């Protein structure tokens, strides 16, 4: 089918009011499905069905205040309600017909002109909270699949790779490897069976960017994956999703089914010679499977154990074939880059880090939720401006980025710009987007021990430095936690960190010492206080 035909068949008449109710993630757990149903009932009861449209949409960002409901009138004024209960639906509906629209007193509204919303720059999340993720029509109406159409009809594979390279996009899964370069490597491999893989294993505990993107806008990820397949010459894709994300899996399955039905997956897509199939693989709960070689072993039905690189997956991946593997958010950036051009994308962000990054801002922060910010924004603007600091007037002490592979950045370094290099210089990493705020009540030795326990539990056991080293590090940290540590333990701790970092086989072991090293660097006094008194 042609894209314009698609668009025509999918555009619906606009109603005067549009009520959007977040029906994914945290809001769904807070009973938002009932809110949506009650809204519909209230509208029918007030005979407003032809004036008001109600839709279930994806994440609006301020998840800590859910369920969120956004009411939009024809002149584009918006009211955002938070913590909506099903029984408040009638009040929301009756406020529509009174003019000027009074805000019902017992409902809580959320100003949308606060930094939490105004400082965002939404590319990956542009449709999140706006379209119904279970309706392909709404994705198409929001320029969906235009980029794929453009690639297949107007661009050669090499031109697509070139466009992505020029955009400066870097992998959003953690390491920040230039995406275009990775694509070019796979594209250069001799023709034959190749694969593309989407890493949706989201291992970082305390972060949920990928879950939210998949639940709120699954077609965007599919479109990015398809464009990648066209660019590198693959005809088969796999999406490896965490088993803990049933709704994300469900929305992806729906999206795949719809795309097939519209001829956007399968043979001769958009009447071009390009064929593409995609299969879902459901993870079974092992953090190490986020590592690319372990992930591929898992797709092959084996234990998820990493193997040495090289050879890189680009040369020898799934079943020994050249394989492109990227993160969910990386793929979610592709369609907008093709639609708006590499130069547009490269104009956002900093010299070395282009575009935006989605962060899950959680922990001891008032406005916890999901944000998308331009690279180069300061940590201060995020934590204090957007997040509004810690609740209950507590002092923010540090923010943890990069999860078990990252580090803790102290509050006095919050002027730092958020980009790959600056965060690395501070001893942390950009990571996949977890940003956990810690306040004065959080003890840093406990945090270090917490992450070490995580790595110890998740170590696959293949190599000794990680298998035995994480256990020893954990025991040492426990000594500090229990005030049993001696100066010799401190020395041992630092020495062991060095060994594990430099001799482990995969990223899990290599980065396991990072939380210890960064807390030692900025909060050494907490370790010193935790030692036994000298006698």
């Amino acid at each position, binding site marked *: 089918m042609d894209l314009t035909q698609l668009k025509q068949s999918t555009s619906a008449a606009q109603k005067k009011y549009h009520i959007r109710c977040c029906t994914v993630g945290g809001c769904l757990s807070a009973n938002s499905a009932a809110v949506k149903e009650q809204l519909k009932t209230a509208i029918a009861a007030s005979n407003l069905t032809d004036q008001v449209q109600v839709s279930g949409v994806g994440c609006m960002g301020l998840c800590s205040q859910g369920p969120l409901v956004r009411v939009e009138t024809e002149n584009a004024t918006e009211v955002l309600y938070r913590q909506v209960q099903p029984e408040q639906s009638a009040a929301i509906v009756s406020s529509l017909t009174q003019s000027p629209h009074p805000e019902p007193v017992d409902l809580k509204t959320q100003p949308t002109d606060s930094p939490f919303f105004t400082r965002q720059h939404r590319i990956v999340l542009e449709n999140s909270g706006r379209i119904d993720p279970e309706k392909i029509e709404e994705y198409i109406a929001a320029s969906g699949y235009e980029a794929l159409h453009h690639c297949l009809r107007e661009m050669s594979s090499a031109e697509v790779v070139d466009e992505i390279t020029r955009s400066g996009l870097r992998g959003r899964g953690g390491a920040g490897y230039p995406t275009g370069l990775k694509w070019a490597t796979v594209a250069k491999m001799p023709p034959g069976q190749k694969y593309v893989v989407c890493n949706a294993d989201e291992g970082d*505990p305390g972060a949920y960017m990928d879950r939210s993107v998949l639940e709120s806008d699954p077609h965007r990820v599919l479109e990015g994956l398809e464009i990648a397949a066209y660019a590198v010459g693959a005809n088969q894709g796999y999406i490896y999703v965490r088993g803990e994300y049933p709704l994300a899996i469900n929305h992806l399955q729906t999206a795949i089914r719809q795309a097939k039905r519209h001829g956007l997956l399968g043979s001769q897509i958009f009447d071009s010679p390009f064929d593409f199939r995609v299969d879902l*693989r459901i993870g079974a709960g092992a953090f190490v499977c986020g590592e690319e070689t372990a992930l591929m072993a898992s797709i092959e039905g084996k234990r998820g154990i990493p193997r040495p690189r090289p050879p890189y997956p680009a040369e020898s991946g799934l079943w020994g074939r050249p394989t492109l593997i990227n993160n969910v958010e990386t793929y979610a950036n592709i369609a907008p880059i093709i639609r708006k051009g590499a130069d547009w994308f490269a104009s956002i962000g900093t010299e070395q880090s282009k575009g935006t990054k989605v962060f899950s801002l959680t922990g001891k922060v008032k406005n916890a939720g999901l944000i998308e910010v331009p690279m180069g924004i300061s940590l201060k603007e995020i934590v204090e401006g957007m997040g509004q600091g810690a609740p209950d007037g507590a002092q923010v002490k540090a923010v943890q980025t990069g999860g078990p592979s990252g580090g803790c950045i102290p509050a006095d370094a919050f002027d730092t710009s958020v980009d790959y290099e600056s965060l690395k210089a501070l001893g942390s990493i950009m990571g996949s987007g977890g940003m956990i705020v810690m306040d004065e009540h959080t003890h840093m030795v406990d945090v270090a021990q917490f992450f070490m326990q995580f790595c110890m539990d998740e170590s696959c056991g293949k190599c000794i430095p990680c298998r035995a080293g994480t256990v020893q590090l954990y025991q040492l940290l426990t000594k500090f936690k229990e005030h049993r540590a001696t100066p010799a333990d401190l020395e041992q701790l630092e020495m062991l960190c060095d060994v594990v970092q430099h001799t482990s086989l995969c990223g899990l072991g290599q980065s396991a010492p990072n939380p210890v090293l960064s807390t030692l660097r900025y909060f050494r006094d907490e370790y010193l206080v935790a030692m036994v008194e000298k006698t």
Partner: protein
Amino acid sequence: MTPNNTVVQAPPANDKRLRLLEATMKRHQYRPDALIEVLHRAQELFGYLDIKLLLHIAQRLKLPPSQVYGVATFYHFFSLAPKGVHSCVVCMGTACYVKQAAQLLSFLEKETGIQVGETTSDGQLSLMTARCLGACGIAPTVVFDDQLEGHQTVESVGERLNTCLGVEA
């Protein structure tokens, strides 16, 4: 992997669940790389992965039993022992951790008299932890019988535990 001197037998062939499992394997054309999907389905149908069931799967997919057992034990999601009628999963991810998830867990351990990973002796409840449930914005989170609850406190999990077990508060 054969338990000492018991003759290992597959579940009776007329078990409806086995037929459903067979259908899943067939849909995957008995490909060995579908092992994890097959184990997912088997656990969904049977609740846990019995040794006999693993052997049966090994046979059907023409895989060495050691590989099937190895995969089943590698992934946290698979359980080789029966679970309780009800389940309670406390998220111990970082966002929940800094919001005192450990307190919720020790409260639940005290209340139920079991440790994480265990099932009560009456088989009513299994207590587990998760790495992160992806609902960090409403941390701390706990899942009771597949229903996720956010912003939890010791009081709210106590209440929720009672309703889950059908105890009058």
